[in-house]
């Protein structure tokens, strides 16, 4: 009985839906504000993202005639569910996540792909040429960044010798952050580049380039369904940042400063915010690439970095 209550609280309140949406929306708000300042304008208030999602949720739910299908309606929810589930596998307060399994990294990689696949399904079933084009680009982009992302994670797994994220964090608590290990440094860079593509940020915001294909796969979505997409996107931001923090930057650690104990959650928030701000900076100093250029970039430069890292980890003791 207790386990069931725990699970419900975990998935709905902390670190699940409620916590993830609050932090995710807040981070995207910070991202927008910082972007504004970088572009020499004031930018929206930090809480703007809450207002936007709230406004969309309160709007009428319209499905265009050509898009009337079960798939079109269900994919936003599936995507949100998948991404909130990843939150349960992430170490948020301590090395121990809310849910554990023997090889949770494989589950995380799998679950992180579901939103991308949902976007494609939504785009293809929307009956709009922009949706189809956006979905097509999304497929290509998925095949670009996913390989790099998985290779970077394999490098970490080879270094630590475990597929469990909790073990990776424990390992770093004893041996120091993996980003400080020179053999894994190329993998860190590759993972950051892959995350930029996963989160659809410039220069890899190709699947939803608004000046080319309106809003890509999500063109026909509006109202509450679009709000759920936004929520899923925003939570994905913190999930990917949290995963990177756990893999390379030591994960949530408790510190004792002046006799008071700082809980791991604070460390988690600081680290994820730093990663989000790094991604924000990257997206503001570049132009968008074309899809073929992005594919080439990932499979040549980024993949090479990840492979070098993997080879170094395996070859150099």
């Amino acid at each position, binding site marked *: 009985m207790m386990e069931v209550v725990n699970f419900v609280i975990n998935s709905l309140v902390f670190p699940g839906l409620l916590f993830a949406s609050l932090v995710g929306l807040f981070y995207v708000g910070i991202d927008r504000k910082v972007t504004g300042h970088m572009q020499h304008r004031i930018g929206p208030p930090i809480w703007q993202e809450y207002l936007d999602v709230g406004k969309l949720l309160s709007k009428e739910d319209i499905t265009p005639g050509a898009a009337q299908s079960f798939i079109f309606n269900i994919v936003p929810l599936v995507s949100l569910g998948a991404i909130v589930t990843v939150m349960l596998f992430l170490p948020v307060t301590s090395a121990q996540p809310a849910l554990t399994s023997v090889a949770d990294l494989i589950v995380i990689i799998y679950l992180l792909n579901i939103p991308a696949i949902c976007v494609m399904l939504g785009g293809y079933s929307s009956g709009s040429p922009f949706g189809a084009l956006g979905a097509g680009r999304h497929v290509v982009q998925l095949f670009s960044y996913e390989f790099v992302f998985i290779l970077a994670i394999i490098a970490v797994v080879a270094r630590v010798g475990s597929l469990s994220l909790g073990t990776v964090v424990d390992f770093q608590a004893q041996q120091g952050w993996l980003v400080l290990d020179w053999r894994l440094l190329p993998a860190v860079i590759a993972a950051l580049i892959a995350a930029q593509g996963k989160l659809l940020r410039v220069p890899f915001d190709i699947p939803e380039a608004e000046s080319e294909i309106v809003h890509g796969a999500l063109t026909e979505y509006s109202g509450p369904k679009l709000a759920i997409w936004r929520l899923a996107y925003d939570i994905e931001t913190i999930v990917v940042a949290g995963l990177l923090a756990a893999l390379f930057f030591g994960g949530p650690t408790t510190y004792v400063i002046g006799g008071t104990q700082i809980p791991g959650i604070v460390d988690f928030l600081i680290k994820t915010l730093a990663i989000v701000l790094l991604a924000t900076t990257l997206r503001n100093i570049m132009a968008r*690439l074309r899809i073929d250029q992005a594919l080439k970039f990932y499979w040549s430069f980024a993949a090479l970095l990840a492979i070098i890292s993997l080879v170094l980890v395996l070859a150099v003791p």
Partner: protein
Amino acid sequence: MTFVVPIGPQHPALKEPEFFRFEVKGEEIVDVDIHLGYAHRGIEEALSRRNYKHNIYLSERICGICNVVHTTTYCQAVEQLAGVEPPERAKYIRAIIMELERIHSHLLWLGIAAHQIGFNTLFMLAWRDREYVMDLREMISGGRVHSATNTIGGVRRDVKTEHVPTILHGLEKLEQSTKYYINLFGSDRTILARCTNLGVLSKKDAIKFCAVGPLARASDVKTDIRRDDPYGAYDALSFNVVIEREGDVWAKGMVRLREILESIRIVRQALKEMPGGPIRTRVSLQIPPNETVERTEAPRGELFYYIRSNGTDTPERVRVRTPTYGNFASMKSMFVGGTVAEIPIVMWSIDPCFGCNDRVTLVDSRTDKTRVVSFDELRRWRK
């Protein structure tokens, strides 16, 4: 299998309504069909119903961005019809304001071009620096956008001596930031990746399709009305005609950016060499029957006015051909073979201004089809 991607009449890549029907195979463009006429405002008919004075304000409103060059062309044409010559100082003031307009137009182009390739930071910064030139225009003419400076026989407002240092200071800042953008445009790797080798207009095609303005100059065609057929004060001012060889989007941008530097040079020179004296001569507006053609170099290319007078204070016919119209013919050869991702930036590379361009479409109400009418048919139809 090809399918059709409609760009327009309403689309985020277009700032004005116009319809482009792209046939694509995957991401590759196979064919493009251009439908014009969505922003038709009947402005030529309106021009031939108002008197010469009122028409100044109407011609100013043909285009929001290049309004001074429209009124200058119109006023020069009417002055030619009436056989008067504006005072020298007025010509210099016109040149100064027209060049400031060119700077503002090209910076605006840079901003939107950056937005089209997803570089929003450059977009915001370019428009921030555009504010300098807007402020200068406001100081000189009283209006940030519509300066309403020109009148038949001269200009309405003088450039005051106490304004000159402020203008020079503003130009200094503009020169600095333009040099920075030229450097950035030539070295940033993502910009180069998105702009080089696409939307190429070869020199042969540029001549064949009669491309005008920066579009032609980017394809190594040395054409500039200011030099080829000097008007106003441009005889006395020295400047270089900027050309690039590549003919791609990057070259079109580079031509515009380097033209900003030339414009800054022209304004400085004009401020230095500007003679004193009156700024306006009186013109009697009962103009005897006559006709005239006037050409000027707008920021986007050659602007063409034809006016026929009939002895009253109202023109019988005014024909306006804007540079965008002259450049549509080149568009197809720039698009075909490219990809969907290139559409916005290639389209923007001609700096289109659809509102100025649209003149006439005929829609058959029974079939809802746009009909192409031959010149003879149109003449018969008018009678």
